[in-house]
């Protein structure tokens, strides 16, 4: 419809205004983090740093335990993502391609646990961690939320489309169940594994409540815990804090910009859940 296309340029006005609203907080914080402390609180504020400096970043590294928090966060994110991928892909495959006693019940069970609020379990989970000796360890953050029903669900939905004949053919060639999983299923599942990887990285990097429950030793803080702790203090040292906030958000933003399509596929599948 040609005439509607021509009127459509009006839609750019709301699009641009909303884009500014979405972006300016991020840009403003980046700009603020590059100002010396005097300019940070100047009135009127300068939009672009007048006395550009990296001091806030330097002191974030030197005066806080930032390197430690960064290492903890990266370690938790990587280990948790590997674990999440392994156990959820296996479970998702079993539920997608095998029919066995109880498979229907297990599937319904998985679907019904999708909505369990982990927040409602924080007290008993804390007790379980303590009893297992995982309290105040990074593994205490990593293991418990790894068995995510969402992960199982995503993999299962995706693998449903793999034709049984392919697996039967591999069996006739003498491949074992495990070999079929490794050699045939995993390569086929690559796109959904990419989605799950990206999701897991996002969940773990951003997680606050679980590290909060599992950790009290400040040497084991993740970036999120450290930031929450600093901003809650009586006198906030804004300069280095903003620099830390920027350093915390930038890796995920970069990952998003590179792997956009995997995010989009995953979230759109959420919409197709039922």
């Amino acid at each position, binding site marked *: 419809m040609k005439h509607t296309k021509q009127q459509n340029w009006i839609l750019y006005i709301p699009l641009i205004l909303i884009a500014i609203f979405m972006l300016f907080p991020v840009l403003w914080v980046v700009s603020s983090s590059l100002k010396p402390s005097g300019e940070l609180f100047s009135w009127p504020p300068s939009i672009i740093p007048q006395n550009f400096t990296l001091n806030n970043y330097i002191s974030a590294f030197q005066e806080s335990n930032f390197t430690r928090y960064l290492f903890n966060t990266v370690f938790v994110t990587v280990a948790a993502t590997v674990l999440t991928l392994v156990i959820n892909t296996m479970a998702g495959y079993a539920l997608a391609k095998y029919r066995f006693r109880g498979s229907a019940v297990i599937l319904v069970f998985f679907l019904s646990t999708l*909505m369990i*609020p982990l927040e409602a379990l924080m007290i008993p989970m804390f*007790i379980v961690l303590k009893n297992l000796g995982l309290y105040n360890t990074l593994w205490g953050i990593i293991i418990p939320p790894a068995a995510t029903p969402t992960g199982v669900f995503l993999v299962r939905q995706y693998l449903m489309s793999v034709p049984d004949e392919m697996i039967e053919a591999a069996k006739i060639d003498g491949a074992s169940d495990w070999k079929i999983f490794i050699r045939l299923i995993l390569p086929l599942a690559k796109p959904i594994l990419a989605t799950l990887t990206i999701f897991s990285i996002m969940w773990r990097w951003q997680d606050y409540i679980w590290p909060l429950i599992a950790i009290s030793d400040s040497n084991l803080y993740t970036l999120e815990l450290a930031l929450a702790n600093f*901003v809650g203090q009586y006198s906030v040292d804004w300069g280095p804090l903003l620099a830390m906030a920027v350093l915390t958000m930038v890796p995920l*933003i970069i990952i998003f910009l590179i792997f956009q399509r995997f995010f989009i596929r995953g979230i*759109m599948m959420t919409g197709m859940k039922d």
Partner: protein
Amino acid sequence: MKSEKPWIPYAFLLPNALIFGIFVGLPAVYGIVYSFTEWNGISSATFIGLENFKTILTDSEFWTMLFRTLIYVIAVVPLTVVCALGLAWLLTRGLKGSNVFRAIFFLPVMISFIVAGLIWNWILQTDTGLINYILSLVDIEPVGWLSNPVFANISVILVTVWNRVGFFMLIFIAGLLNISPTLYEAAEIDGAGTWKKFRNITIPMLRPITLLVIILCFIEFFKTFALVVSLTGGGPINATRYYVQYTYDTAFGMGEFGLGSALSLILFVIMGIVTLIQWKVSNGGRV
């Protein structure tokens, strides 16, 4: 498909089931048990029957907190749903550059609650914040965005929408792309304008997805915690202390683990009811 060795599928499920059982299943049972006890988390728990629930339900502080949480949820859910749908609609008009706008609108989703709260905490500062500076340009007195109880709630609502709208927008985009274009073409032949098409085709076709988004929003926002921690700290004077933070403080702050467990169980029941409603409604909507 069947395996010759019947134990094979169970072996594939085992690692997941073990971790889920130990760290989610077991705590779920513990949680129910603890909610009937008085317990400080260290010494042994004493069974006290329904006493915790009695304490909670007769505590005016609990009702104030629940009411506060509900007000926040009732404000933030419709706002998020309408904005997400609006953005999704704008991005499916076939405009050039839609992909770029989609990425920009989604960008805040990549920013964690803690960092989002921190960013806006900086922007909304009363004396040095950018927002109050912009308002001062049009002669508006500084607003206590984080220090006035009403404005603090408004701030939390706005930041929640800013942070999460992109996520739900994507779900709506998937829904909009699923509507067959022939429906619109037929309507155009009948002379329907943009608004008529939106009302008579888009809205009814999106009904199931809209319900899903409403429920997802409700469940997520009812549990809002991390965002508040770094934005307002739950203040001023508890004005933005919602359900999960209240539960956390009761257990880990005051050492009332029994009471905290009872609060968690109530949260669990509320979430369960909402999920059931969703199942009922979405089945009904699909026929």
